């Protein structure tokens, strides 16, 4: 049994220590906004925040998160889709299939938490999520637009 604080709520989950946070979120807590893409921290579809820092939850053991750490998923990024990154994503109509976008948005929100004035170089270094539909050109525009909304 582990205690996790997810999107501001304390949750008790019955999983073994090796279970990645991704599957605790998806299968134990029903938070399916966080996606499975590769399982080896390559694609970033599973990105969530632990204390505001983006992590790839598919390789992040749930046991590594302590009860006082804040886990934030796409469902908890804002109550109503009003986070600046979400607003920018809607305004630029960025998602195509959309499957990678919760992870992409969490990665970008994490970047802007750390660096509200992220440059193109910062984006190149920090945003390494895969999008096979190919929204990457709009994602870059979205980061810059989100900066103006924070």
């Amino acid at each position, binding site marked *: 049994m582990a205690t996790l604080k997810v999107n501001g709520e304390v949750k008790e989950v019955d999983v*073994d220590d090796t*279970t*990645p946070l991704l*599957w605790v979120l*998806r*299968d*134990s807590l*029903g*938070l*399916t*906004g*966080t*996606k*499975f*893409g*590769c*399982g*080896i921290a*390559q*694609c970033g*579809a599973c990105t969530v925040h632990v204390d505001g820092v983006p992590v790839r939850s598919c390789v992040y053991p749930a046991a590594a998160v302590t009860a006082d750490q804040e886990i934030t*998923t*796409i*469902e908890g*990024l*804002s109550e109503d*889709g009003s986070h600046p990154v*979400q607003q920018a*994503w*809607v305004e630029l*109509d*960025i*998602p*195509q*299939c*959309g*499957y*990678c*976008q*919760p992870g992409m*948005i969490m990665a970008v929100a994490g970047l802007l938490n750390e660096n509200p004035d992220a440059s193109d170089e910062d*984006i*190149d*270094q920090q*945003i*390494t*999520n*895969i*999008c*096979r*539909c*190919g*929204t*990457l*050109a*709009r*994602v*870059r525009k979205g980061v810059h637009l989100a900066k103006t909304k924070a």
Partner: protein
Amino acid sequence: MADGYTVSRRNFIIGTSATGLTIGLMTACAPATEETATADAPAVAEAPEVNAWVHIAPDDTITIRIARSEMGQGTLTGLAQLVAEELNADWDKVTTEYPTPGENLARDRVWGDYATGGSRGIRGSHQYVREGGAAARMMLIEAAANEWGVSPADCTAEKSVISGPDGQTTTYGAVSTAAAALTPPTEIPLKDPADWTIAGQPLMRLDTVDKVTGVQQYGADISLPGMLTASIMQCPVRGGTLESFDAEAVMDRPGVKQVVKVDDVSVAVVADTWWQANEALKVLPVVWNKGEFADLDTAQINELVASGLDADEAFVGNVAGDAAAAIEGAEQIIEATYNYPFQNHATMEPMNATALWTEEKCEVWCPTQNGEAALAAASEAAELPITQCDVYKMLLGGGFGRRGGGDYVTQAVKIAKQMPGTPVKLLWSREEDMQHGFYHPITQAKVRGGLDADGNLTGLHLRIAGQSILAALMPGALRDGMDAFAFQSLLPAGVDPQMEDHTLSYGIDNLLIDHAMRNPPVRPGFWRGVNVNQNAIYMECFMDELAYAAGRDPLEFRLALMEDYPKNAAVLQTAAEAGGWGNDDGRGRGLAVCKAFGSYVAACAEVTVDDAGVLKIHKITAATDPGIAVNPQQIEAQVEGSFVYGLSGLLYGEITFENGEVQERNFDTYNSLRIAQMPEVETIVMASGGFWGGVGEPTIAVAAPAVLNAIHAATGKRIRQLPIKDQDLRAA
């Protein structure tokens, strides 16, 4: 009604039929039988029986029913725009919904073809969906006119409000029940696209908000009461079989419920959660009989393919004059050999399907590009009549051609059939996805061209050697053994109306394009762009080689051969001009042009290669003429997206074999373009009107050859082997 509706009701007809209604057209449909009404659990089966595209509730909410699958390409929004345009609808009140394939079958296929591929989503159905919207508008107006006792001809409709001759007004929702009872019109005039106000506009997609909040449900996200989850392992060598496995070795692991032989080639572990199932599967003792291809490797495959380069026998796709004689008699002969490897689709959402099987019924929830094929696969695997099965289509987390077949549906049903009454969600690992794809076909090409003393092309022979998709997947579509599709974008214009979408962009007096089919024992598939990907490289890179050999400008050299191809020439010239062709700014520029999926497309790429050989693709300027543009901002998104997919293939995409097994297992060995490599993209939509070209695929094929030609311009080096990774790009 099944339990699942509460969790994924967006994909079903919500139970509004008692108060809303459906307005139909096309063929008058027989009422659903009791049997099909059961199979088609969605409540619309009980709705007033007219139906088809437009469903209007009393509160004026308009639900447009879409048969084609949305996989990110925007077809849901585009098709809704076409219906809403003819309907004169209030766009702010439009939503969309999928009728199930079972419902389509029960209604004599009123929604037509469900297959979503070949960039046909809109261009293959625009006529009947627009007629659907127009017929609904006519019936709504007629209903209002009847109520007012006036002639329909004296009434108008705009933004879902109908106005009468004496100042009367009413809304679509108020008259929709009466309209449904009317006889559908037989003469249905359509608007001139020049008069469009909803279609043709750069509207935002209808499905964006849920995708940025995590609310959007995909097949992989489904949860049904009592559901278990499965992970599958298929024989790592195609042609091999499952010999045995030791279920007892994993049965005491946490959450494991059952170990299932799925079919002759695969085994699955079923558990409470996917992590539990997959962890158990990883340690499950399995013995495979690897079969006759256990020694297959990439070198053998390449050798087989290469044996076609100089073979005497080949299928002829395009011929004019006498290419061989013209080349032999030329002042200068140029020859080059190229290749195109296997590539995987690697959709972001791995393959999945959820099935619930009982002796009476089989239901499947899945992402699919072809709902009817998925339904047929479900019925066959369930061993139940098709009328006792249905498929609930989920939004696809990427398709790109991978989800046109039913392999994962068949597997899910075969697992669920062994656990009657329990819904089972099958989700593939990424490793299974990489190893069991329907790969982009492998080919090579030898191209020979002759130039006269003035640098004019005297003759050209393009020999394609390699794999045929149709031979593997649709042998019935071969013509006397020939795969005409292998010649996409290389076919003669004005010969075969069925292939007119994929004709060559040049007039060449002495021409031979032929295909020596060589089919290795690897499953090919339709991969975004399909055969245009390699054919555009072979033709456009060689055109560039010819132009340089002739000492001529590659743009001018091409245009000289395009006199009878004005639309092809127009996109090429536009892309070149906007892309800074001829600029002396230290960047290498390359061009490519083709006609594919009914659209004319061209690209101008700008690159630099530094002293260490690192390639930087700065910008690609794309021009596309799809004839009629239904949503220009979505076309831009598709062009940009197609470049990411195409450039990922160019830079990294290669599936290789050793000991019969695919060597690439995940994104660490099968990489995809990241934002740091993403060029700026400028998209010029130059819709010339009068025809309906595709959008999702055509531009993908010009990205790679434009970049390859730009690399040559920057470095003097010809890269003729794909992918680029691991090749030395430093200046020659």
